[in-house]
């Protein structure tokens, strides 16, 4: 527990205040410790990967960031604002957006309306203005419409605007999730397995997209992904979780050679001869 907590916070490239910062986050469900002493620093426009075996607590970390769960210990800062304990909707309004591992679209709404719904977060017109359709409301709706169409265009799904979100193929649903998240005008974007279930082509496309997003939207990105190739190529910094504990942080090269990471993914010596052959050099003795 304390070993994980004492790990240095991820060293960020920029000296300015980070876009997203977590300190010593902990959460347990009953007796099960889901996340223990999790710390992370995400610089402005940074791209950090969060990896770990299944059940390591990656999505739980996302749920802590987005207010679905409240940490029992620790704090989360989005820019200068402390966001732990806030409602998910308030956190989204503060500038933290996410996508979901198991896609959660507004299935019966059109693709366009999915994005417009999210862009509506920045609308100021209340119920009465909406019902009276005041000029201010109409101008706002027009702005939301333009913005939403543009986002769809940027993600290459504008031709689907009128279709039901549910009817989209899987890859496009993932893109729509990203478009919807971007429509809330976030400072930080959390992507939960954006290329899960995609083929090589789609993955390549998505990789270019994620890189482009950062520049286009000046958004910092935290990425959960099981596709190691993607993570290693994209992320300047990687945090590895196992059983809720941070077992390694650093750049791709450092992570790849970290004995604890290899152990978490592939098991201990007696389990796999293959592993031994592949990474005998990197294996540190006495890790167990």
């Amino acid at each position, binding site marked *: 527990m304390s070993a994980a907590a004492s790990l240095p916070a991820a060293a960020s490239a920029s000296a300015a205040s980070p876009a997203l910062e977590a300190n010593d986050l902990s959460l347990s469900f009953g007796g099960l410790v889901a996340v223990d002493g999790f710390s992370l620093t995400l610089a402005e426009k940074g791209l950090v990967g969060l990896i770990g075996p299944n059940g390591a607590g990656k999505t739980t970390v996302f749920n802590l960031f987005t207010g679905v769960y409240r940490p029992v210990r620790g704090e989360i800062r989005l820019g200068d604002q402390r966001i732990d304990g806030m409602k998910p909707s308030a956190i989204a309004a503060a500038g933290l957006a996410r996508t979901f591992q198991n896609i959660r679209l507004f299935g019966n709404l059109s693709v366009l309306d999915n994005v417009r719904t999210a*862009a509506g977060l920045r609308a100021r017109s209340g119920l009465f203005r909406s*019902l009276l359709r005041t*000029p201010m409301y109409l101008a706002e709706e027009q702005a939301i419409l333009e*913005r939403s169409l543009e986002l769809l265009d940027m993600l290459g799904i504008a031709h689907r605007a009128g279709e039901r979100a549910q009817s989209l193929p899987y890859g496009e649903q993932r893109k729509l999730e990203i478009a919807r998240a971007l429509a809330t005008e976030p400072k930080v974007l959390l992507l939960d397995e954006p290329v899960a279930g995609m083929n090589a082509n789609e993955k390549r496309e998505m990789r270019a997209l994620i890189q482009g997003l950062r520049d*286009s939207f000046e958004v910092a990105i935290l990425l959960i992904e099981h596709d190691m190739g993607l993570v290693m190529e994209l992320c300047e910094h990687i945090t590895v979780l196992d059983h809720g504990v941070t077992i390694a942080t650093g750049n791709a090269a450092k992570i790849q050679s970290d004995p604890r990471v290899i152990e978490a993914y592939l098991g201990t010596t007696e389990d796999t001869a293959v592993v031994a052959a592949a990474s005998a050099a990197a294996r540190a003795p006495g890790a167990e």
Partner: protein
Amino acid sequence: MTLDQANARGRKRVSERITEPRIGAGAAAVASLWPVVLGILIAWFLQQWVAPAIGPFYAKVVLDIGIAIVAASSLNIVNGFGGQFSIGHAGFMMVGGYAAAWLTYYGSIQLWGSPALHGGFLGGGDLLFLCGCLLAGIVAAAAGLLVGLPSLRLRGDYLAIVTLGFGEIIRVLIQRTGDVMSPVDAQAAGMAGTIGNLGGSLGFGGIPTYTRIFYVYVFVTIVVVCAYRLKISSRGRALLAVRENEVAAEAVGINTARVKIVAFVLSAFFAGIGGTLFAHELGTTLNAQELGFQKSIDIVIMVVLGGMGSVTGVIMAAAILTVMPELFREFSDYRMPIYALALIIVMIVRPQGLFGIKELWDTQLWRRIQKAKDGA
């Protein structure tokens, strides 16, 4: 447009895009109000020309259709848009109806000495009635707030049970009130002294019958315009998003608790007005029994059949389900089995209702008709 091209524009936020309104205040008012004005003209037309032409029986059917549309369209806001399954809608009508009946009956006595109709079109009595509509809306909206609160913690069947319980509680409370006071007693008691005398289980008789086709369809217009405008606005999309996926809705910044409460309050407000129209109809003794569970189910069926979230679909279902029993009076014994059967069939064949979330002009049939027209 590729990502690179969009680079420069992509950062532009919604707030930076809002341009100065392109239309002047006058044009804006016209754009905002024309559907309402049109609705009022239609209401006037129905009242002045249609009603006399079709005779009192069918005039009453037209009037009942209007009330059904008000009730069903208001329920559609909660059930259809918000996906919160409420089966106590008649309870809100009851709360509103009784509040307004209390105001018009005892108010008339205080003002004019008798509960009879007073004044002509938009005369004193009509104004009192319209005040009753407003009061009904406000009282029902307060009840909506009360019932909306559990919706923050409950969903599906559990919420349905709470709303059902609410309707029953209101019914029982009203049935426990005292007899309607005579004008002499009421004048002596004053307005505050009569709140407990709403007729009890015998019903509230002698309510002045201010409900006319004109007023009914003016309120139909208001409810329908509000429901439709809500649906196509950001606020309405937030409500639809709550229905579709609550977790995702929160994640894009929608305060789901607030959205649900607002939906309940707005829906109950209009239901209260619907109840007022119902209470002041000619030939009814307002009875809590009539606005009980059965009535709630009737309204739910209109929404489910028409399409959860379809404004036009619900209007059509309300009209059809009001006309049908009148046309087939001789089969009235079979009304409930037929209702139940129709509901089961629709749920199997088209679980989203006849229109689903679509409006009339979004449907395949409509497009085909348009195409046929263009071809001809």
